[in-house]
């Protein structure tokens, strides 16, 4: 990168003058808070703090859910300001974010990714497909639902869920984690 380039300098400079696009945080989703009722244990609280490392696994999605998960990182939602970030390896992850009806050809890869994620770990199933296979349920090629393969802590519905819905679900997960963390003896 060469900072002398006029177009880049101009863009960076005008960027300083424009107001930020990032929007206030939505309220954590009540339904998600209820689903997450499970008490986090002490080790989990210590580990999670106020940050979540997410490893996304596409287990047979139509790629629609991925588009909206990507959007979480744009300037409007800026998911990193909440300490939520996407990581490249399941070994670095607290959360597996799984999309799709789980095709039979992705089942093993999902199981192995889950096994490679260190405990404590959470699984968030994203999209209507992840609940029960959605409109692909009943096909010879899908297992039908993420929870049929790995235990799921939170479902975020939608086809695909909007970035706001995704954010509300993730904030509920964070809130749950930090609430139990504050109550730590």
């Amino acid at each position, binding site marked *: 990168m060469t900072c002398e380039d006029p*177009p880049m300098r101009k863009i960076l400079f005008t960027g300083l003058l424009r107001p930020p696009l990032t929007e206030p945080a939505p309220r954590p989703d009540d339904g998600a808070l209820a689903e997450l009722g499970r008490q986090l244990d002490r080790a989990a609280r210590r580990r999670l703090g106020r940050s979540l490392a997410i490893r996304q696994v*596409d287990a*047979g999605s139509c*790629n629609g859910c991925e588009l909206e998960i990507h959007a979480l*990182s*744009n300037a*409007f939602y800026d998911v990193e300001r909440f300490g939520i970030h996407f990581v490249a390896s399941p070994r670095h992850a607290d959360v597996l974010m799984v999309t799709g009806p789980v095709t039979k050809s992705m089942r093993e890869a999902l199981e192995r990714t889950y096994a490679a994620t260190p405990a404590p770990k959470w699984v968030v199933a994203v999209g209507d497909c992840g609940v029960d296979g959605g*409109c692909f349920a009943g096909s*010879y090629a899908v297992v039908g639902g993420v929870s049929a393969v790995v235990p799921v802590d939170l479902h975020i519905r939608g086809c*695909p869920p909007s970035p706001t819905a995704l954010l509300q679900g993730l904030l509920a997960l964070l809130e749950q984690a930090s609430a139990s963390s504050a109550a730590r003896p």
Partner: protein
Amino acid sequence: MALFELATNGIGVLSLSCPDGRFPSVAARHPPALRLERTIRDLFGLEAEGLTDIRPWLDHGGWGVRHPLGGRIDAIPERTPYPFLPAEGESLHQIPVGPVHAGIIEPGHFRFTANGETVVRLEERLGYVHKGVEGLMAGADIATAARLAGRISGDSTVAYAVAFARAVEAAAAVEVPTRAVHLRALMAELERLANHFGDIGAVCNDAAFALMQAHCGVLRERVLRAADACFGHRLMRDRVVPGGVAADLDEAGRGQLRDLLDRIRRRFPELVDLYDNTPSLQDRTVSTGVLAPALARHYAAGGHVGRASGRAFDARRTPGYPPYDGLRFDVPVLEAGDVNARVWIRIREVEQSLGLVDQLLADLPAGPLAVELPCMAGEGMALVEAFRGDVLVWLRLDPDGRVARCHLRDASWFQWPLLEAAIEGCIVADFPLCNKSFNCSYSGHDL
């Protein structure tokens, strides 16, 4: 089998019954048909006589059934090792990548054979996201099948919905109201804009230039928000239905779309300027991942992959379909065939799409949004230009108006093999960049 002759723009559909379960291999003479014939073997159990590569393609052995669309034989799920093609020579090593990748992308396996940093051979193995959509469609009512069609490849949900709807309308011989035709095109161009912004940003990001992605991401988000405000869904899913459309555009919506165009026209040129004048970025994209025009022609590569390598094909123009036959737009073509050319094609197409949205907004006919579909048997086919290339849908309807059979072919079928060719001789580290510049669909291919 659908055939297209470039010289005359003629389209033909051939049917061949295979009572003894065999048909002469097309791939034996025309390699682009290879993966399709391997798929026919997997799904229907029909043998292509003369087919040289008889490894399974979509069937990874885990379905518990063989030939699910043909004679259906129960099978014990078992995963047999997949024999990759050999590469021989001194000091070659293999790098297996996937199916789970490091980013937020779809699953597939890439087997690189490299000599040091240089890729000697890339072999793809796809099929991980095969959901059996054509199996689910057989016997489904039209509304259910249309929903499935809109979920073949989420990024092209409008294009697929239009292609499926047009095929149904061809089979049932119905005319769609002109307002619906215009609204379909409007949604299709918004989808193209959103995807092109996403891709331009993502290619630059894979060249370690995150600034472009940040700005393109804002433009993409603005398109999706406008789509949500106007049509009630960010990706405009299920808004195009057989017979017409399921969402109207009111005066407020028109105003919102005009504002959107204004904003894009104010911001996009400076991003193009940024792309064009950042040497570190050009250093990565120029002359990387070159696809030779002859190969693009041979594989009839659609979309930006073909048009960046000299193939001036765009389904909106040839065979063409309404309302595009009455609209002004150019089909940009370049010859260089590298990552840079594929980015420039997208940039030019953004400009064309803006012009198309202008025209569509200026001249939106009044009238009904949809017509009733008659219950009748028939066969129909449609070719529609999605942002990544031509989507073909063929289907046959039963006398009770249900789908008897439906086949949906993504442009990716003929682009994926070309990625293998384009990466040859590049360094391994350029693969993400090349891959993104193609941006083939996994789900659209795996079905």
